[in-house]
């Protein structure tokens, strides 16, 4: 079966004042259609570079990024993005914020269809009744929900998320995991989630890619063979615990501390 996302041997370095700073080194990631790939790794290992590469916002020095059997060389309309900062436009209402991608991707779509589509998503994430509010009137968790709606409003094939829940408190974060799980059940898309949170990667991912420290390589791939309709409880069961342990060890190796007792 063909992979929807195929990152083949990607190597990239940034030019800085003190010379080349390699961030990715022969990175390989393949995600089949409809699957959810979680990418974890130590801080500063080039995870954000990865999102920009998949989105076509930059080109790698070496290697290739393929989406849908086509080589990515520039941005494409079939991608949705969400960041740690929800980057909602303060001068638009929540509804108008969610509609924004449709204005670019489907300029001929009637306004009422756009609004219906956006309202449908807002309802799914529990923001019904808040569509007329300004972003500043919402809590951090609610803003991130709106940001998720905006990322998938144009039905992208690929959703790329760069630590979308990183700035939220733990309970809000767990709420959003469940929202994410429900969205996925209702709206099929292939997803790449960059995260620091191992529990998040196990709860949401079908596969977890562990990246090594900079420059990042694929250090390990973990198949998360848990049922699709996961609940938070599953994280406390032995199977998930075992996976979390494995991931923790891998991170320690990635940080170059595998000799540590702790």
């Amino acid at each position, binding site marked *: 079966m063909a992979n929807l996302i195929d990152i083949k041997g990607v190597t990239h370095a940034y030019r800085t004042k003190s010379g080349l700073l390699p961030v990715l080194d022969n990175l390989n990631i393949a995600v089949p259609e409809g699957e959810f790939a979680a990418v974890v790794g130590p801080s500063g290992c080039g995870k954000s570079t990865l999102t920009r590469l998949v989105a076509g916002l930059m080109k790698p020095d070496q290697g290739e990024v393929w989406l849908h059997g086509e080589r990515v060389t520039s941005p494409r309309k079939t*991608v949705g993005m969400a960041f740690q900062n929800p980057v909602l436009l*303060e001068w638009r209402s929540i509804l108008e914020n969610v509609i924004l991608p449709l204005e670019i991707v489907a300029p001929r779509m009637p306004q009422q269809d756009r609004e219906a589509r956006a309202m449908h998503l807002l309802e799914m994430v529990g923001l019904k009744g808040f569509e007329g509010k300004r972003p500043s009137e919402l809590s951090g968790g609610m803003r991130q929900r709106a940001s998720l709606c905006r990322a998938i409003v144009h039905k992208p094939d690929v959703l790329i998320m760069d630590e979308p829940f990183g700035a939220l408190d733990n309970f809000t974060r767990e709420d959003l995991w469940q929202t994410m799980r429900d969205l996925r059940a209702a709206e099929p898309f292939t997803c790449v989630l960059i995260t620091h949170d191992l529990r998040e990667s196990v709860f949401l991912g079908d596969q977890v890619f562990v990246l090594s420290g900079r420059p990042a390589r694929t250090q390990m791939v973990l198949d998360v063979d848990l049922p699709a309709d996961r609940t938070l409880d599953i994280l406390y069961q032995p199977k998930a615990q075992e996976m979390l342990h494995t991931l923790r060890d891998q991170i320690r190796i990635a940080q170059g501390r595998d000799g540590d007792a702790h």
Partner: protein
Amino acid sequence: METLQKIAVPILAVVLFLLAWEALVWVNDWPNYKMASPSDLPPAFWKFRWLFLEMGWQTLWRTVLGLVLAVLFGTMIGMIMGFSRIARDGLYPLLVGFNAIPKATLVPVISLIFIGQHDFNTVLMAFLISFFPIAVSVGIGLSTLEPEYRDILRSLGASRLTIFRKIALPKTLPEFFGALKVSVTLAFIGTNLVEIVAPHGRGLGALFKSGETNGDYPLMFAVLIALAALGILLYYAVLVLERIFAGWAERPQS
């Protein structure tokens, strides 16, 4: 109650100020060629009422025209500086250097280049003195746009123009209006500078000058008050525009 307070308090403050002014002149027994008192002003306004209207209009339209040019030019320069690093590095020292020149020194220069073009010179000065804050604020607003804001639309293949129109421009509006409030006052200074200094000028500045020439001190003070009134008018006009176009930037008060 709250609206009453909003209206009554400023009026009361103005009345108190006028009373204090009147008292100051009265206590010191200053003649009106030393300092006019508020009670000298209504007769002066009435005596020259048609001149005030005519000259006030002259000053107003020149200031506004200069300001409009400053907005257009300043926004353009700001956009160029905001989008291109090279343009920013090249233009910045020029702009700062130009802004550092006290504009009063430019009056004779301009007057010599465009002899007798009083309207043109006045508008030009209003423009020259007021575009700088706008250019800088737009330039900084654009160049400090967080990359994520750009990425949301860029990842969908939006053009630079679309990104500017949908994100960069509206996001810069609060800074733009902040700068415009400064520019309004500056443009006003520019207009009056030329009106006062240039021979055979028109506008409120010229009226002020004629008051000085004729030793009509109440007239001079009346002009000052008229200038203040015009300045307030322009400032509030900008405030209304800001409410309309950038009202979202105001946080709801809790």
